[in-house]
């Protein structure tokens, strides 16, 4: 309750201070579109960032869940909104880039989105069950049959990463999809129905901490988990480029000063102790990039996946 009061007072104070500055965002609340349901990873990061961004921005942020159609419905509604900075959204990168690369209709043009900031980044790792005889990528490839992996859907970001990664490593996979969430894919490894799974390190962490799963490699440049080699060290430097980003954007052609105000607010939020602590306790890697850096990152991501167009089709 106390927190609620504090929050309310802060918001009120911020609102009261707002008219003193001219222009954006004095016209009222900013709608922050989450293209997935409440309680998920994208929803959580938006709701965690919102109060911190509010403090700096001086306007209320209203998270709005518009789930459906693999996260494209939310993106569509942002694309249709007015480019005045009062509607922004969070985007699944590289999920949407890959869909675009493969020529799938996502209902809006990813190239036209005005990029505002990158908030967080996840890198992947390959995990096996605790009692699995497999101790390295080499063991995994030497099973004498296609490696069975688990994933939610064929177009999920981790599934795409698996296809590219094991193609680079040079072993055949049979990716069993249809699990109802990333947790279920990890439980499938524990049940022993699949050999391994490739998932974000932060999601795997809780199961490796409890000893149910064991990492055999991280898809990073340097070793980030003690005793677990990185793929770059193992001789596959391309794999460290695979990752999952949580990126904020808005409707096409947003005014530059509005974008600058928003990125500034996200920067301050990302650097705040609340967000840093939250990132630490949940294993989320907070990585802020400003509008320009995010824009060039997006081009890079699209180009990267374009090379694998044939493989993914």
């Amino acid at each position: 309750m106390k927190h609620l009061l504090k929050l309310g007072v802060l918001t009120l104070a911020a609102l009261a201070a707002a008219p003193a500055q001219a222009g954006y965002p004095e016209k009222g609340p900013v709608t922050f579109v989450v293209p997935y349901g409440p309680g998920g990873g994208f929803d959580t990061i938006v709701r965690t960032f919102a109060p911190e961004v509010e403090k700096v921005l001086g306007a209320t942020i209203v998270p709005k869940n518009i789930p459906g159609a693999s996260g494209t419905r939310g993106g569509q509604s942002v694309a249709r909104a007015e480019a005045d900075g009062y509607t922004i959204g969070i985007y699944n990168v590289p999920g949407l880039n890959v869909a675009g690369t493969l020529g799938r209709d996502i209902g809006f043009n990813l190239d036209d989105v005005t990029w505002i900031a990158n908030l967080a980044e996840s890198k992947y790792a390959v995990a096996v069950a605790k009692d699995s005889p497999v101790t390295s990528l080499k063991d995994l490839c030497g099973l004498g049959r296609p490696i069975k992996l688990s994933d939610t859907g064929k177009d999920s970001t981790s599934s795409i990463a698996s296809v590219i990664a094991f193609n680079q490593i040079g072993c055949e996979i049979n990716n069993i999809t249809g699990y109802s969430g990333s947790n279920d894919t990890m439980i499938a490894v524990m049940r022993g129905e699949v050999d391994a799974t490739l998932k974000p390190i932060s999601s795997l962490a809780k199961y490796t901490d409890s000893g149910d799963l064991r990492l055999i490699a991280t898809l990073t440049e340097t070793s980030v988990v003690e005793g677990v080699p990185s793929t770059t060290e193992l001789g596959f430097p391309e794999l460290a480029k695979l990752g999952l980003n949580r990126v904020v954007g808005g409707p096409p052609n947003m005014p530059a000063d509005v974008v600058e105000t928003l990125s500034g607010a996200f920067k301050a939020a990302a650097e705040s102790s609340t967000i840093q602590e939250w990132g630490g306790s949940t294993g989320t890697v907070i990585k802020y990039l400003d509008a320009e850096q995010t824009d060039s990152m997006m081009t890079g991501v699209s180009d990267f996946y374009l090379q694998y167009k044939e493989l993914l089709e």
Partner: protein
Amino acid sequence: MGFEALLQALADIAGGGGIIYFLSGIVLGLCFGVIPGLGGTTALALLIPVTYGMVPLDAMYLAGGVMGSTAFGGSISAILLNTPGTAPNAATTFDGYPLARQGKAGLAIGAAACASSMGGVIGLLTLILFIPIAKAIVLSFGPAEFFLLTILGLTAIAVSVRGKMLRGLIAGAVGLTLAFVGSDMILGDLRFTGGLNYLWDGVPLVPTLTGMFAISQMIELALKGGSVATVGDKDVAAMKITGVGEGVLAVFRHWPVLLRGSVIGTLIGAIPGLGGTVASFLAYSSTVQTDKHPETYGKGNIRGVIAPESANNAKDGGSLIPTVAFGIPGSAETAIFLGILVLHGMDPGPMILLQHEGEIYGLIVAITLASVGASLLGLAISRFLVLITRIDVGIVAPVVIAVSLTGVYVLEGRMADVLLTMIMGLVGYLMIRFDYPRLTLVIALVLGETAERSFHQVQQISDGHALQFILGRPVATILLLATLMTFLLPVARKLLEKRKVLRN
């Protein structure tokens, strides 16, 4: 651990300021339960932003209050209006509504109230008993077991059609076909979407259910006129509202039904993705199948109210089994509950019970107390609730239609859902007119997707040797036998009867 933590949670909820959140949760849950189209998931989803400023434990009390009370709220509309307030209450309409029409709504509500609170308590006790082996339970249910459970659920269709086998099969086949609309979960291909973006994720369940049950029922009532409790030409106002206490006692008199319902509810609740509709439906069908007089069901048998309602509340305890084992949700509601934990900077995982014991037990206690509290509250006002059955449907129908269409819109805020609800309402009405069972279609729609997906997964995992794979897993083998039993039991019973007749 265990009972100690439980007592601590009890003391906390009774002593602290959390009781306010808990009570608001109950009232909110009851309201969301009563209104068709709105349910526990919607209530929790709308509450997420509110909980942000709260202490985690208070958030748990609020969530628990909502989760424990929606089920009973939904049974009220199921009994009084033949319109399940939430999807799992659909099975309650079979015998609850006939009771209401006979002027025995009090009896049915009393039984539903008592069965849901007892179900909640039994579910909790089962959960605590299972906590030490929670991991083993979750790990023994894989795609093979999911597949067989859905098949077991589909065989129960035979019960829901009550003698109209051909019509039932047609409705079931339509439901399965609707279940296959949308992107294929395994291959990602779009099927039967007709180019509509709206159908990418399949035919949405809540609008379909609301249309099929609420809207169609209101059309039916409105066209018939009068009020719900019309018995022949008798003046309904002269009938007395009695039997609430009798209904409560009936639950204890039929304790095996209560126990079976609760156990089925807990087990189905423990399996992610199946949920309350399947739990209450399986509890109902197994009660009918094992009864010596199956023909008395559907005409106002009180056991037909006790079974689904006890299962419906027991499933909340069960749905926490995967949560305490691995920090994964067992139901849509627990998924949101875990979301609330993440929002508060906690990272639920397999160590959830060690790291967040207070929150988990707080939620368990809140859910259980809420299912008891909601029932008490419901009983207290049941006298007035029953009056709904005497109001002219000219007033009831427009109110229910307006409120449920609003509820459907609130869920995701898209107009297409409202349109689908109306279309399904019309389809549902035609099904009533031409005597096709609606629940059969809905059960097939709920189970079809899981059945198809898990079968496909079993095929891939077993490299095409599905049967061998199934027979190698003990739980799967038991489920396979249970499915065969549901087919053979009625046949065996008929043969036995014939022999008896011959002997006489």
